[in-house]
Each structure stands twice: as structure tokens, then as C-alpha cells.
């Protein structure tokens, strides 16, 4: 009897440290409220990568487990969710997609010196500039998306005149238009007019009146907005008989909103990868299939992808650093230049924890059908002073 007891004690004693030896990733994300629709897909993608790593033997020989706390789409709850996860032993924090909602949790991680990754923030503040030296985002900066649209439309669609329609509701939109405003004139284009609106506006009739008053319809309209305001603006622009090519940021990717403008054509979105099954890179489609297997449906937009990329990059940096200690992992991440991922190469530096240039797939919607028509990488990275405008 005594031997059995002591054997059990030894077994328990051995088992406990093995459990504690797991690497823990904390997800301070919105599991309820309006932001849930954006956080869940990227979180699912992150877990797919975690399971792949665990299946291949884990990270530093240890399994990765995850813990979660609900921010309820609320900025105050975000901070307490972050603190709760750190108390529960998180080695790294993944925070909400949006800067404003992820930052409180990321700041909690920063104060403990551990790494934080935004699920898909595209504002330069979601990193060194806004949170601190150990914070990163795996997505592509909004300004890069706007600049990509500017350069691509001039090179491949012979665009010469552009009109900028900015939805001033959130910072992301301003980032898109900043990138377009920087690149379009630099590449020789002429911005013939600009206007602003708000995402919740019941009507943009006066903005449309202004576009129609131009002597000539612009070749392209750079629409810097997000759903639902973007869908509503497109419906009203097309209904008014304006046929310019409409350019957008990645935020309007996904075919779920196309019902708002039946038979839409001439609508272009830059994305990190195609959800429509036609991405030229086999890895992207393999991910789409894995995602469908995990959730029962393909991703609704390309915003699932950064979740996968962030775990991939962080795990590589941890492997190289040989530890999960924040500053050492940060140092390894900052050494990454054109690090290959399933969704294209990614780089970080000690100045910028974001992508200031990236190859993007160009999706065009023709007769309500989205398809990859091209790919484009801007000819020079967006400079830091433009990003900070």
C-alpha cells in the first residue's frame, strides 16, 4: 500500500511540472458584442496554427495551450481581461482586432514585459508607437492598402484622375486615404476632388451631388470606409449612375455584403489572401480548407489570415530566442526581413512592428462575383512620417 501511495505521489509530482511547463497564450478578445464577428475568425485561425505546432511536437519541446477572457467589445473590459490572463500565467497575449479595443489589454501585457499581438489592427499605433516595444500586429498597414490601390490602378487600369471619399468615423479609414494621397500624386495621378462622410450617415446624397458636379467622371474613387457605411455608399454611388472604378481597403473584403448593391461591377479590394478559392498560392487554399474543417464554413473575409500569421511568426521567434521572455522574442522578431509565411513575406524592425509594404492580391468584383485579377506590391515602402500623419 505504502509503495502504491508513494508511486502515486511521484507520478503526481512529475505530472504537475509537466503541466506547468506548457507555453500559455492568452486571448483577450471579444467573444460577445459587435466586435465578436471580427475577433472570432482570426482567433480560430490562430488556433489552427497552434494545433499544427502542437501536432508537430510543440514549441521548444513544450505544448502550447490557450486561455481566453472576454472583452465584451468594451474598452474597460479589455484591460481587465488582459490582467486576468496575465494572472493566469499567459506567456504572450493576443488582443482584439481593433486598436482602440485591443490596446488596453496590450498595455497590460507591455507593463509585464510580455509580448502582445493585435489580431488584425492596421493602425501604426498598434505597435511601438502606441503601445510599446513588445507589441506587434500581423496585418498589413492601412496606408499600404491605399497606396497599393493607387499604384495598381494607375499601372494596370491606366487611371489618371482620382476622387477621395473619406469616412471620418475611425482611424483605419484615414490610414487608407493617407496611403492613397501619398502614392497617387507621387505616381503621376491627379486627385480631382475629395469629400468626407460618416459611416452612420442616413444618406450621402450631397456627397454624390458633388461628384456629379465634376466636369468629368473621375477614373477611380478611393472609398476609405468599412461595412456597413461602405456598402451603403457604394449602393448610393452606383444608383446615381456613377461608373468610376471604386477602390477600397481590405476591410470591405468578403462577399457577404454584396447583396446591398445587386450586380456590382468595377469594385476593387486589396487583400492578404483570397477567400474565394482562387489564390495563386496553394498554402492559402490549404488554410481555407483547414478553416472550413474547423468551423464548418470558409472564412467570410481575409481578416482570418493575420491570426494564423501572428502565431506562426511569434513561434518562429520563440524557437530562435529559445525562450518566451518578451524582450528576447521581440529582438528575434525585429530581425525578421521577408520572413516567409503562407500569406507572403513579413518584416519587422526596431522602428516598426507592422508591414509598411506587402504583396497584396487584387480582388475585383464583376457582376457581383469576386475574383483575384492581379497581385501588386508597392514599389517603395510607405515612409514612417506618412504613417504618422
Amino acid at each position, binding site marked *: 500500500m505504502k509503495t502504491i501511495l508513494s508511486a502515486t505521489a511521484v507520478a503526481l509530482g512529475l505530472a504537475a511540472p509537466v503541466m506547468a511547463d506548457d507555453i500559455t497564450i492568452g486571448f483577450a478578445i471579444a467573444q*460577445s*458584442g*459587435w*466586435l*465578436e*464577428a*471580427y475577433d472570432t475568425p482570426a482567433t480560430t485561425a490562430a488556433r489552427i496554427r497552434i494545433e499544427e505546432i502542437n501536432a508537430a511536437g510543440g514549441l521548444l519541446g513544450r505544448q502550447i495551450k490557450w486561455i481566453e477572457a472576454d472583452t465584451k*467589445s468594451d474598452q474597460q473590459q479589455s484591460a481587465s481581461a488582459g490582467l486576468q490572463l496575465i494572472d493566469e500565467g499567459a506567456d504572450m497575449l493576443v488582443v482584439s482586432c481593433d486598436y482602440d479595443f485591443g490596446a488596453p489589454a496590450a498595455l497590460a501585457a507591455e507593463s509585464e514585459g510580455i509580448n502582445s499581438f493585435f489580431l488584425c489592427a492596421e493602425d501604426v499605433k498598434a505597435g511601438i508607437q502606441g503601445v510599446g516595444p513588445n507589441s506587434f500586429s500581423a496585418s498589413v498597414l492601412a496606408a499600404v492598402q491605399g497606396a497599393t490601390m493607387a499604384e495598381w490602378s494607375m499601372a494596370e487600369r491606366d487611371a489618371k484622375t482620382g476622387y477621395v471619399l*473619406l469616412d*471620418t468615423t475611425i482611424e483605419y479609414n484615414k490610414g487608407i486615404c493617407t496611403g492613397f494621397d501619398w502614392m497617387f500624386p507621387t505616381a503621376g495621378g491627379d486627385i480631382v476632388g*475629395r*469629400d*468626407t462622410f*460618416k459611416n*452612420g*450617415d*442616413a*444618406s450621402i*446624397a*450631397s*456627397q454624390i*451631388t*458633388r461628384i*456629379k*458636379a465634376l466636369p468629368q467622371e473621375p477614373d477611380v474613387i478611393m472609398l476609405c470606409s468599412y*461595412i*456597413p457605411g461602405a*456598402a*451603403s455608399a457604394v*449602393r*448610393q454611388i452606383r*444608383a*446615381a*449612375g456613377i461608373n468610376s472604378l471604386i477602390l477600397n481597403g481590405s476591410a470591405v473584403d*468578403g*462577399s*457577404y*455584403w*454584396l*447583396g*446591398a*448593391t*445587386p450586380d456590382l461591377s468595377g469594385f476593387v479590394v486589396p487583400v492578404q489572401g483570397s477567400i474565394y478559392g482562387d489564390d495563386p498560392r496553394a498554402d492559402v487554399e490549404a488554410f481555407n480548407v483547414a478553416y472550413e474543417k474547423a468551423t464548418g*464554413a470558409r472564412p*467570410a473575409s481575409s481578416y482570418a489570415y493575420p491570426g494564423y500569421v501572428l502565431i506562426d511568426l511569434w513561434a518562429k521567434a520563440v524557437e530562435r530566442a529559445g525562450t518566451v521572455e518578451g524582450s528576447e522574442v521581440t529582438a528575434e522578431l525585429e530581425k525578421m526581413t521577408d520572413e516567409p509565411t503562407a500569406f507572403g513575406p513579413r518584416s519587422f524592425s526596431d522602428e516598426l512592428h507592422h508591414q509598411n509594404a506587402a504583396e497584396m492580391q487584387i480582388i475585383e468584383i464583376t457582376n457581383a462575383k469576386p475574383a483575384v485579377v492581379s497581385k501588386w506590391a508597392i514599389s517603395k515602402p510607405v515612409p514612417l512620417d506618412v504613417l504618422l500623419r
Partner: protein
Amino acid sequence: MNNVAQLFFDAASLGGIYAMAALGIALIFGVMNLVNFAHGDYIAVCVFALIVPSSEAVAVMFLGHAPAVVLIPMLLGIGALLAMASEYVVFRHFRRADPVAMMIASFALGFVIQNGLLAVYGGRPKAISLWPDLNTPVAIAGASVPLLQVIVIVATLVVVCSLALLLKKTRIGLEMRAAAENFTMARLLGVRANVVITGAFALSGALAAAVAMIMVTQTGVADVRMGGQIMLVAFIATVIGGMGSLPGAVAAGFLIGAVSVLLQAFLPLDARPFRDAFLYTFVIVSLLLRPQGLFASNTSKPRV
């Protein structure tokens, strides 16, 4: 292009939407001194009633499939029922409470409705293409005007006129006006409080449904937060118009719509993102000049 005519139509159609929403709020305030902040959420519910309840990203039309002759009365009915139900379940118990408590209750109700929608439909905005042909522009007086704008303007006028007729010519209308003037006295004189209040809620809910149909036709999207912005503007319109005054709410709704369109058209580009700041400055100035509102009703004046 005739710019003045274009501006007129842009302003009148936006003003029409605001006026209808403001009317819905003013009606309730008139009979029971309640600022119903759940009104915006009635609008959202009516929009979501058009599609099949599901949290899938792609929306499938449900009521939206019905032809207009069926759809319009049905949606007006849903709006009315929802408003009457909220009166029965919530506000009836607050009859003797002070207006602040009622206002807080309306916030709470709005919160419950919004989260109910979130639970059923998910947080992602949905696309709804209701009557897309109505957005086709037609030429009127040298301006290019989407048919919907004309319909909004005409519908607002029809609603305002029929409401005026209802209030002037029918028994329930008379009772409502009496209740709005002095509720206690009206009850002493035999006005049926429950009928009047339920009637006001039904009308207010139907107006929310009308606003919902216009908004969804115009924008093509459904979002759980879509009622918030319009509710705010409508509330301000009822304040500027004079709390409880129906003509005041309509006039102020049109006024805010017109000022908003004019600011958008004439502000220099750098100032245009601050359009709403200018709009609310105008509101403050208007309230400084006429604190009781443009068309103050007798009840809001101190009776000493």
C-alpha cells in the same frame, strides 16, 4: 445641373427621415413625458425583420421577399406591435415614476433589444437589397433625384397630414391632444389613459418601421447599431422643436436635415469632417435663442 433644386431635394429627403423619426419620439413625449431612447432600436428591429434570423454572414431575405403591398403593412404592424409590447411590459409600470426614471428604463430597454438582436443575428452588418430600383435617379426641375428621395418627401408629407387629420378629426386624436396638454386633467374628464398611451406607442412604432424601410432601401444594410445615430438626431429635433410639440418636431427634423446638407455642401474641405460639430453648434445657438423650443407646447411653459 440645377444646384438649388438638387440641394433642395437632398435636404428635404434627409430632413424627411429625421422628421419622421422625431415625430415618433414627440408623440410619446406628448402623452407621457417619456423620451423613449429605445426608438432607434425599434428601427433596427424592423430592418432585421426583413431577413431570416441567423448569425451567418450572408443574409437571406425573409419578409423582404413579400411584395410591397404585403410588406409595408406587415412591417408597420411589427413596429407598432413592438412599441405596444414595450409599453405593456416596461413603461406601463413607470406611469407614476419621474421622467428621469422612465428615460433610464428606455435606455435599458434599448440595450436589451440591441443585445437580443446581437444574440440572434450576430455582430456583423448584413446586406439587404430592398427595392433597389427605387434608387434610380429621375430628372426633376433640372436635378437628378433618386426616386426614393421623392418618395421620402411625399411620404413624410402624407404621414404628417394624416397625423394632423387624426389628431384634429378623430376621438382618439382629440384625447391625445388633451392628454398632451394636461394628462391629469384629461383623465379627470374621462380620457381613456390606456387607449391613448397604447395608441401613441402604436403610431410611434409604425413611424419607426417607416424610417426603417426608408433607411434600408437607401443604404442596403442592416446593422444592430444603425438606430443610434438617427435616434440622436431625432431626439435633438424634438428638443429644438419644443418637447411634445408635433409640428415642432417635424419642422425641426426638416431644419436639421437641411442644415446638415447645406453644411456638407458649403463647408470648406478641411472643416467638413467637423460637420456635426457645426450642426450641434447651430443646435446650441437655437436653444440659446429659444430655450423652450421653436414651437413650445403649452405644457412645457411654467404655469405660475
